[in-house]
């Protein structure tokens, strides 16, 4: 699963050297602008549709050339040749690849993602169950990464070579190089096993399981909707450790990127001008410089969030978190292509949505595009 181009068509304007001014185009200019916008929206939609289709095609082909036999997964090791053949035909594998792919696309367009052979359930039902679990975890993880990573990166850049910069460097280095598997187990051992501060593997404690009505599938949100505070606390105690772990990894990335963006800004002339004008250092750094890196930073955060949606397989395994990453991986290992394709569509769609959100944010953050 490759990330689609998160920056979308056009990409973000690079952070300007001077604070951008607000121009007032004439009527003809505005019409031309509107036409350009319409074309760009249509182009965006078309390219997104093509991206998703391409993603599906590549995944489909990988699934078919993979040396794993999905039929065996269905019928099992003991099946006779006749039972095997019957399942082979029932799964449509006797058809040419092109026909198989077109049939699949046709079904998908009608909202039918097929049945997963490793759970025996419709893929859409599976995804409706696993995706909220992942979304909840990735969102909290990214939140932690942003809330800590951005200020850390800013301060590291502002006090370059200072203690905080050194600390940030070590934090990022450890975050990049420590295997998440080990870190996860150690986290469990210390915070769950020894200190008892957090809940163990799984999304909820036994007592709360199934007690909160399922609305969004995200236990934290559902328990808030139900107004069940103890259930929320329980769910929070289970999610906080894996989310912190993912948060740590995204914080390592986000703080490094923030730092380098900031360093670039701080060496610009407008910063010197601002300082000469007598602005406080706090205003120079937090308003002027940080304001100008907002756009590339949004891209970085969106990318980091996107990768957590599909890439937190190991965390999901260690914490018995029934999420999308492990669903896709398990599907891949057992040749369960319906599950893999369905999961891929969801991840692809997430990138598309993140893309659109970033686009909207750019417009919001960049005065030139309003």
């Amino acid at each position, binding site marked *: 699963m490759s990330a689609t181009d998160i920056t979308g068509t056009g990409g973000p304007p690079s952070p300007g050297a001077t604070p951008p001014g607000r121009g007032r185009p004439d009527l003809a200019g505005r019409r031309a602008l509107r036409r350009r916008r319409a074309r760009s929206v249509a182009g965006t939609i078309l390219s997104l549709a093509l991206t998703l289709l391409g993603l599906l095609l590549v995944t489909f082909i990988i699934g078919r050339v993979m040396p794993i036999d999905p039929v065996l997964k269905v019928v*099992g090791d003991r099946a006779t040749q006749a039972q095997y053949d019957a399942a082979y035909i029932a799964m449509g594998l006797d058809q040419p690849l092109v026909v198989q792919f077109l049939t699949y696309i046709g079904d998908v367009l009608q909202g039918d993602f097929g049945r997963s052979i490793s*759970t025996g359930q419709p893929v859409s039902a599976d995804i409706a169950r696993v995706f909220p679990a992942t979304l909840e975890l990735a969102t909290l993880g990214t939140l932690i990464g942003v*809330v800590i990573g951005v*200020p850390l990166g800013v301060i590291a850049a502002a006090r370059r070579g200072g203690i905080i910069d050194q600390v940030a460097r070590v934090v990022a280095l450890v975050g990049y190089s420590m295997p998440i598997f080990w870190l996860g187990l150690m986290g469990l051992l210390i915070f769950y096993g020894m200190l008892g501060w957090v809940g163990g593997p799984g999304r909820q404690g*036994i007592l709360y399981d199934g007690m909160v009505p399922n609305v969004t599938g995200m236990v934290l949100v559902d328990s808030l909707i139900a107004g069940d505070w103890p259930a929320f606390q329980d769910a929070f105690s289970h999610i906080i450790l894996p989310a912190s772990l993912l948060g740590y990894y995204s914080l390592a990335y986000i703080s490094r990127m923030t730092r380098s963006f900031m360093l670039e800004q701080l060496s610009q002339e407008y910063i010197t001008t601002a300082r000469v004008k007598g602005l406080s250092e706090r205003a120079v750094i937090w308003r002027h410089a940080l304001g100008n890196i907002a756009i590339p930073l949004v891209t970085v955060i969106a990318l980091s969030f996107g990768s957590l949606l599909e890439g937190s397989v190991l965390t999901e*395994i260690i914490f018995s978190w029934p999420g999308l990453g492990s669903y896709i991986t398990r599907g891949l290992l057992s040749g369960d292509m319906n599950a893999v394709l369905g999961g891929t569509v969801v991840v692809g769609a997430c990138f598309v949505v993140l893309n659109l959100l970033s686009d909207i944010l750019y417009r919001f953050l960049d005065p030139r595009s309003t």
Partner: protein
Amino acid sequence: MTFHLTSRAVLLASALAFAPAAFAETPADTLVVAHTIDDIISLDPAQSFEFSGNDVNNNTYDRLVDFDPLDPEAGFQPSLAVSWEVSEDGLSITFTLREDVTFHSGNPVRAEDAAWSLQRAVKLDKTPAFILTQFGFTADNVDQMITSEGNTLTLTMDKPYAPSFVLNCLTANIASVVDMETVMANEADGDLGNGWLNTNEAGSGAYVLAAWRPNEQVQLTAYEDYWQGAPTMKRVIVRNVAESSAQRLLLEQGDIDVARNLTPTDVESIASVEGVTIQDEPRGRILYMGLNQKDELLSNPAVVEAMKHLVDYEGITNSFLKGQFVTHQSFLPRGYLGALDETPWTYDIEKARQILTDAGIEGGTITTRVRDLREYIDVAQTLQAAMGQVGLTLEIEQMTGAQVLDAYRAREVPIFLGEWGPDYSDPNTNAATFAYNPDNSDEAAAVGLLAWRNAYEVPAEMNEATVAATLEQDTDTRAAMYQDIQRQYQAEAPIVPLFQRIEQVGMGDGVQNWWSGGAISSVMYRQVTKGE
């Protein structure tokens, strides 16, 4: 964004993170089990053939005969059938059913349901169907061969099979009795309710399926009207916990009562923890070495004989397989009728070298494929080292389980290292695959037979003996026949049973009467209790 805001957010987040969470021991009437249950693909007894699916069905359904979880060694016992009678010609068995049993739906369990359940399994012809069709039932004749009248059910077979063989097969998951009315009310496109039963349950067992969330958990609740009395544990929750260390931590913290996938390292470190006990239970799986007779070197009987002395049985079971396997060199696992405890082979490099020298073999190279599972790789590497000492080079390619299985079924794995689990509780289950291969040609495509997969040309008399043992009416004679077959097998077969699986179950101190199903069955919860 200002620094003030972020620092407040950080403070809030850390305050929340370290807020004391509400922890509790598992409730007294609830049994919480950690297990890897990601293999379940169907809960229909006519289709389910995976370990975890059978674990569920064994508790939600009843069968005509069953094992007593408190005395499994007694063999099959009356369950829904109170008694049975074998006809003079040995071709029919008539069962008399209890009349006080109800399904979870409230419908009575009738002989008609039992007959229909067996007919249904034969007609659906899913993978486990062979357990029933081996008695001569086909989709066309099964309505005449399995009939019911009042509270009796009659099975008529094509040959006078050993009653112990038939009854053992009726303890299998596929012989579960399903509620005909409920299932047929959910039939779609003539599937005999298969689609619905894949994710639902219609049994009369001690537990009702409350929820199954794939790869996450199975929840069972006690059936209060169960005919053998309502179970003590009112709720059983099986959570999918893939990591052994996570299972260990959960058990140490008292968040689960039973951990079923502990590695030797975790067993060792948990053994000293107060409040936790380890129960060893021999299971039915045999770890064996298949020497493919299509390989020129391996088809030499001397090489086969030498290989049996190149496995460091003791060293392996005392190190990386410690506690998880015991040495077992015959194809029927301990716990089976006719099991053989003799261990004719020892690790003896000198002897192996001598055998090879006597046969004029100076060396050779074998490239094989091994599933990327730690224990198999470890066994393969010890074997590699031992073979190296006698001039044989073993090259190992690691692959996923599915890839190795594909190749194995295509007879393309020179040295197979892996496990075989019995399909039902009768010795024929292993005899018919290890020691039976009537046609060794590629065209026969008997992919289900281990002998065929290893291209082992089973001698005619062994094929015949295997068949004869299924017809022997006297159970003791039958047991002796299987022992003879295994001795002959040990003497010449290129498929070498090495170890038998032991399940090391970690349990909270209070848990009593746990039974994982031994070598012959699946887990049962109805007898489990939890003390203080």
